[in-house]
């Protein structure tokens, strides 16, 4: 496959852009594969990529109900950070952050990774203490983190309102300078292109309708494009993990909720970083197109409709305007919802299951995007070796029986 480069861009410009080819084939399903990944989102494609690249499994397929980039990969707010409290979380999210740093080069695809810094605000003394604890925990785990007082926050993000007269004044915040944002479509397209190059079949418009199990082991899947035989099946279906698991009679500790996000009209560059606030609950960054990308909390109820409630949006707009009064006359252009699978401890499941050959990666809650490469890397290792590696081991389903939860809810998970 031809490399993408500045030279190539220039040459194609002179030739009327007639030389570009599709980034991946429109593959037809083969009767059998060595492994099949359900779900062509970021995590699914990353899983297939590392299976092919690091474990030599190239006779594999990614089956995707819709199209690449059309699911939650296209619905998140692309925030990248790894400043989680617990060692287990820091390990996987920081592993992901390390991979993000060179992923664009590795994939030969500009994923527009921007390490512009992520600030998590504190609005009261209790929260400040908790965030300072997190800074220290992060440093022990090699995650870059620092504490800023409100003037430090103001210096890093000049448009923020640090007045003491607001309902929840900003009294400081943590900063992870290596955090930031990237371009969601580019990531999935880049992964899909490289997967395809290594011979992985990407089967779009191919919905899994059933999983065939014989003698406790997976033998294949029924799809809208026919039966596909495979001894190894990996579900990476954010938002529908329970639906897929139910096909083999498994119940999971997951509830699915709508999570909404919004973008404003495009502005000239004004917001230099990512600002998140758990207490007033909003997070905001500015995309390279100039739009503000704004998100907040989930709807409390279980739903698969990708529609959230307007009161959630009202709440986050109120929070946004208190932190950034400068945005008060902005118009919002688009609003959408995605479905997030939330585990009780706000940590993911990367696990084998009681069904031999059936693996689950899911339950990333509201913050899976940042983990994409690390998740795929660890999950591919699990699928190839049938044993979780050190990074994946804390996230098996057994933790709900043993009680070894990685309880990030209080520590990090309200706002992702």
């Amino acid at each position, binding site marked *: 496959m031809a490399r993408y480069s500045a030279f190539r861009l220039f040459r194609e410009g002179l030739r009327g852009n007639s030389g570009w080819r599709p980034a991946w084939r429109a593959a037809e399903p083969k009767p059998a594969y060595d492994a099949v990944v359900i779900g062509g989102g970021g995590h699914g494609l990353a899983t297939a990529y590392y299976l092919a690249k690091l474990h030599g499994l190239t006779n594999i397929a990614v089956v995707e*109900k*819709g*199209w690449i980039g*059309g699911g939650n990969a296209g619905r998140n707010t692309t925030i990248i950070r790894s400043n989680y409290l617990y060692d287990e979380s820091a390990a996987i999210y920081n592993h992901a952050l390390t991979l993000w740093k060179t992923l664009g080069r590795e994939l030969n695809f500009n994923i527009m990774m921007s390490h512009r810094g992520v600030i998590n605000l504190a609005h009261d003394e209790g929260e400040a203490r908790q965030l300072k604890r997190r800074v220290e925990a992060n440093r022990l785990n090699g995650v870059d983190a620092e504490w800023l007082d409100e003037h430090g926050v103001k210096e890093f993000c000049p448009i923020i309102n640090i007045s003491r007269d607001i309902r929840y004044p900003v009294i400081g915040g943590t900063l992870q300078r290596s955090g930031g944002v990237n371009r969601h479509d580019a990531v999935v397209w880049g992964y899909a292109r490289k997967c395809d190059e290594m011979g992985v079949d990407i089967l*779009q*418009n*191919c*919905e*899994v*309708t*059933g999983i065939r199990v014989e003698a406790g082991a997976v033998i294949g899947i029924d799809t*809208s494009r026919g039966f596909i035989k495979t001894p190894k099946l990996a579900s990476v279906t954010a938002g*529908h993990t*329970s*639906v*897929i698991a*139910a*096909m083999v*009679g*498994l*119940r*999971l*500790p*997951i*509830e*699915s909720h709508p999570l909404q996000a919004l973008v404003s009209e495009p502005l000239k560059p004004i917001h230099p970083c990512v600002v998140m606030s758990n207490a007033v609950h909003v997070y905001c960054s500015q995309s390279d197109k100039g739009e503000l990308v704004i998100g907040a909390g989930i709807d*409390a*109820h*279980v*739903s*698969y*409709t*990708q*529609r959230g*409630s*307007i*009161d959630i949006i009202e709440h986050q707009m109120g929070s946004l305007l208190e932190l950034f009064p400068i945005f008060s006359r902005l118009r919002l252009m688009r609003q959408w919802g995605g479905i997030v699978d939330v585990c*009780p401890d706000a940590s993911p499941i990367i696990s084998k299951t009681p069904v031999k050959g059936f693996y689950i990666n899911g339950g990333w809650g509201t913050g899976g995007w940042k983990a994409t490469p690390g998740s795929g890397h660890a999950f591919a290792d699990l699928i190839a070796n049938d044993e979780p590696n050190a990074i994946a081991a804390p996230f098996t389903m057994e933790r*709900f*029986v*043993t*009680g070894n939860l990685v309880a990030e809810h209080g520590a990090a998970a309200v706002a992702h």
Partner: protein
Amino acid sequence: MFVITCPYCGARDQTEFAYAHEAHIARPTDPESMSDADWAEFVFMRKNTKGIYAERWMHAAGCRKFFNALRNTATDEFLAVYRIGEPMPEVSAEGPATPCGEQPGSGNDAVKIMADDSGGGGR
């Protein structure tokens, strides 16, 4: 946003209600004899059905009573509300077209009703 019919107070805005998750999870009658796996099942495992789902709501800004509801989580349509202790009403809905309830490749705009045997989705 929903308009939810509280069986005690009538139709009210969703903002008056607190969600109380899956309904009909019976407390263990013999906790002493339960294994860790049994506890995990009771405490953590959920049906999380796409389709007809029995769930609890609490009228937090009203009568503050808990009640049950049947809602289609694929369309957000409320099919029934009933008081705690009352049997789950029979409701009917169209059968599932596909597991995700949509035409493949259609995106998620046209979600369709997906029935569930109210024990399914789980096991």
